[in-house]
């Protein structure tokens, strides 16, 4: 499983997103506090398969799927 940052319209509820992603083998990270992006979008932490970005491309509920990549302290 890979960590993802999934962006939806702010009007989409957490339950709607869960329902959308569960059949794809994803779980919304309950410990990740969703982050508003601009005034109309919200970003959720999601665990899902490596091809999730391709699977959700063009989806009308999800506006963006970015990898949540690990970094290092310099």
């Amino acid at each position, binding site marked *: 499983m890979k960590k993802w940052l999934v962006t939806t319209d702010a009007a989409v509820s957490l339950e709607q997103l869960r329902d959308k992603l569960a059949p794809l083998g994803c779980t919304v990270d309950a410990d990740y*506090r969703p982050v508003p992006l601009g005034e109309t979008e919200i970003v959720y932490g999601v665990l899902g398969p490596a091809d999730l970005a391709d699977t959700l491309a063009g989806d009308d509920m999800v506006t963006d799927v970015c*990898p*949540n990549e690990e*970094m*290092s*302290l*310099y």
Partner: protein
Amino acid sequence: MSKISVLIEIADKRSDSFAMHRSAMSSEMESTTQSEALGKSLAKLGLDIQGDFAPVPMFTKDSSEKAVASLSFADFASPTVNADAPSDTHVICAHIDHSNLDKLTKHEDVAAVWPNAKMTLFGNGDGDMAPPTDIETLFGWPSSRGGLDCRPFRDGVDIATIRDRLGVQSIWEDGFHGQNIVVGIIDEGVNGDVYPVIGGSDLSQIRPPGAAPITSHGSMCAADILVAAPAAQLYDYPFLGVPDSGGMLQMFQLVLEQRRQDGTPHLTNNSYGFTGVPPQSEAPRHPIWDRNHVQHRKVLEVIASGAAAFFAAGNCGQECPSGNCHSSGIGPERSIHASNSLDEVVTVAAVNAHHQRVGYSSQGPGMFATDKPDIASYTHLFGNFGPGRPGGFAQPYDNGTSAATPVAAGVAALLLCAFPDLTAPELKDALIAGAMSVGPIGFDHDHGHGIVNAAASYNILSNSQIMMV
């Protein structure tokens, strides 16, 4: 009869004077050809033309104020290549019999003749003692030639030395110590028992602001901010676990929320990033390749709110990269990337107190904005770590571009204290304008625009304020 050495100014209008002279300087044969051509009409006077003297173009007819004022050389002050310039005369060097000097002076092609007077280098004549040759020893300031510091690195220095290099004393004397400025540290946490943490992340009960050990990376950043701005205050935004895009996104959102509430923090310090570059074909949405990644968008939102973001260049420089670096991310063009290479942030490279680039400091061009890093700043100092410091000897000294970045952020805090209305772009411009070039003049991909200098930036801002009044 003995011959004398003279300088002969010959009428010779040219439009390519600089090119002609450069050509003569690069080849003695060309120099001889030019000199003989210029002196051709004087052959009957028995001139012994000095072919190794490259003819020098002259652009003024005399030394009067009017003649000098007519020149258009003021444009040469700009750091760009200017057009060649037309000259009226050229000077060649020749030996001539004294008896022919009068004829030479009156020759129709000759504008003037001067003695080629011998000069002497001034000195005390004492050549027995070998003088010191180290600029820092001789003049009390590191050489502006720059250089490189690789393993084993030179010793660390105390913060008094770094403060001297930054020139903070004169700013402190004007009453500015960074008071009323808050810096947000996004890192692994800061020790609030020692450092002035007054707020930050509320995401975790396990690691509230200020709860990190004194040996933490974030505590090192805190110490280094206080080098220039000892009265600054801190917000602590600790990553929960391994730093990642999602954690960074959350921390920057907390910064944005705080700024919405009360306009603080005034700037952020970010001493973290990636250490390798995945193939674009395999990871096109990775933050290194995708400028629209949400982590970058959130950073830009915070900068748009007025808070400058300072990012470390990284520790994957070509000459002696950190052991953490993946081979895909070492050296020029590959080691400054993701948010750390956004045009809008201030990207900080690292030098030691001797103005030598530390060989692990990542090098531009950046993978988003090519003109990276923006500036260099000091590392290898006894801030949090080292003799008599709070972090003890867990590390020999504060190190990495991780340390250089908060030193620069501290300078920014000091400037903001003195000029609180500065926007984030204006603050960045002031740091760049005051930066001290090492090595080649101007921008380079090792040091950016040069080493941060608080006094110079402060004076530039002060003068600009006076001009506005």
